[in-house]
């Protein structure tokens, strides 16, 4: 049996940042377990730029962002195992994992940081009707094929879903010589950043079909076409609006789901909105000493916020090992109110906060000229004006600890006040 102070599951941006921070906070005996053949996680296939504006104040590519952390990890001599799969984690932090070199391993950890990331929603989850030919890919699978392995997935492409991955892939495929016929989006607004709509679609005259969805897939062996229809306000296809797009490929960019099968197995409580673990101010789950950060907790749109959150998880895992994390503290619960879908963290042990309380959240609709209103036990503590709020863009709020520490607040709520666009 192997023994470590901290075992980090996942060597993507979340795991890397958590491990580095834990090491910087005095913990030496750390192991990262990564299932892929290299560190960096999904960043390695996100070759576009736009990463790191918050953390490094410069625009990096995904691999560039990852490399900064990988280099730091190596200079800190943090141990990691590649091509290694965790099969199981128990409540008392016994990890079983396998790889080809070490075989079957049992690893005892004092603390665990879960950083497994997320996976893409496949076609099946949407029940898209039609045949089941080759040529239907999730956007991330296609991205890996094209960017890392150097294979093209099609020549004439329709993309369903206008989140950032869908938009970025529309540009990538176009640059590599494919024809992107359209991007269809079920919602009446795009889930992606406006700048990506301009740079990835408008630049190449790719139509964005809002309030549209794929209602049929045609083709026996390979996709031969997809039928796109307009949807009404209940997102139901409107009969008579169907149009056939001839194509050999359908890319799906229809959402990401945190990968929490290991967490569930360990008995960690999940939030049914985020599909990730419920966490406290220290990014600790309901099981003492098991922390979680990054997309395994909730799906982020900016890696910079993953890093920020994971640094917090790493630092607190170190504190836990050093027995500095306070268990008996006054505890505040957070609650998402009107216009807010969820708030991370779920629970705040006031004694463990340093200077500010950091909260991440997502709104339910697109708003213009709105404000985020933060209340403590019903009393407004803060209002933050927002020109623009959208479900696709995560909001971060920092509240000075002095505003909440002194009185016996039992809950903090956040709501949106303003007009839905």
């Amino acid at each position, binding site marked *: 049996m192997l023994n470590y102070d901290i075992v980090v599951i996942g060597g993507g941006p979340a795991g890397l940042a958590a491990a580095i921070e834990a090491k910087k906070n005095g913990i030496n005996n750390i192991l990262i377990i990564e299932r892929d*053949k*290299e560190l960096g996680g999904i960043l*390695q296939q996100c*070759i*576009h*730029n736009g990463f790191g504006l918050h953390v490094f104040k410069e*625009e*990096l*590519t*995904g*691999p*560039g962002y*990852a*490399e900064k952390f990988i280099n730091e990890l190596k200079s800190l001599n943090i141990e990691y195992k590649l091509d290694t799969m965790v099969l199981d984690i128990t409540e008392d932090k016994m990890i079983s994992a396998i790889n080809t070199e070490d075989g079957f391993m049992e690893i005892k950890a004092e603390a665990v940081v879960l950083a497994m990331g997320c996976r893409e929603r496949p076609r099946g989850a949407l029940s898209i009707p039609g045949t089941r030919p080759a040529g239907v890919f999730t956007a991330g699978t296609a991205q890996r094929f*094209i*960017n*890392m*392995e*150097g294979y093209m997935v099609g020549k004439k492409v329709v993309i369903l879903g206008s989140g950032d991955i869908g938009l970025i892939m529309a540009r*990538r495929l176009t*640059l*590599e010589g494919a024809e992107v016929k359209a991007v269809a989006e079920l919602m009446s607004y795009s889930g992606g*950043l*406006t*700048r990506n*709509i*301009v*740079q990835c679609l*408008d*630049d190449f005259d790719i139509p964005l079909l809002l309030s549209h969805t794929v209602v049929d897939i045609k083709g026996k062996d390979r996709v031969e076409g997809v039928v796109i229809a307009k949807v009404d306000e209940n997102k139901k296809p409107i009969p008579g609006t169907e149009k056939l797009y001839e194509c050999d490929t359908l890319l799906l960019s229809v959402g990401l789901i945190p990968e929490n099968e290991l967490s569930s197995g360990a008995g960690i409580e999940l939030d049914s909105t985020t599909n990730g673990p419920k966490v406290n101010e220290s990014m600790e789950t309901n099981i003492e000493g098991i922390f979680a950060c990054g997309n395994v907790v909730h799906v982020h749109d900016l890696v910079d916020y993953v890093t920020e959150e994971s640094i917090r998880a790493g630092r607190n895992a170190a504190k836990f090992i050093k027995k500095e994390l306070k268990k008996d503290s006054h505890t505040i619960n957070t609650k998402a109110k009107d216009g807010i879908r969820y708030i991370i963290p779920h629970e705040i042990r006031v004694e463990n906060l340093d200077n500010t309380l950091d909260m991440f959240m997502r709104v339910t609709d697109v708003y213009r000229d709105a404000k985020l209103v933060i209340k403590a036990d019903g009393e407004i503590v803060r209002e933050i004006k927002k*020109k*623009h709020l959208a479900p696709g*863009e995560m909001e971060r709020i920092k509240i000075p600890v002095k505003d909440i520490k002194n009185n016996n607040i039992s809950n903090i709520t956040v709501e949106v006040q303003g007009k839905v666009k």
Partner: protein
Amino acid sequence: MKEYEKVCIVCPVGCRLTITEDSNSNNGYRVEGNNCPRGEKYGIKEVTNPTRVLTTTVKISGAHHDRIPVISSDGLPKKKLFECMEIINDVNIVAPIKAGDVIVEDILDTGVDIVASRSMDKQ
């Protein structure tokens, strides 16, 4: 007097800009709808010389992948992106490569280099 409608892509807000030719203004253009000075700068550039940062891949041998990601060191003229792709697609490099290594120097005489955006060791 010519007028252009553009969406600013400098930050996530996405201001809708109206850029009008205006000989009285310093830059020859008047920008409206922007919420910050960066929007004005972007608006003028977008109608005079629109540029885009290009990210793509290059063939590599001797590494653990067959492709290595690259990025242009600065914005490239928008209308030259496909021409740049043709040049980049013909390049073959050999590992090891360090992040920041110049892969194509001064592509199409634009003064912009194509550089590796990650390192790849020799296998």
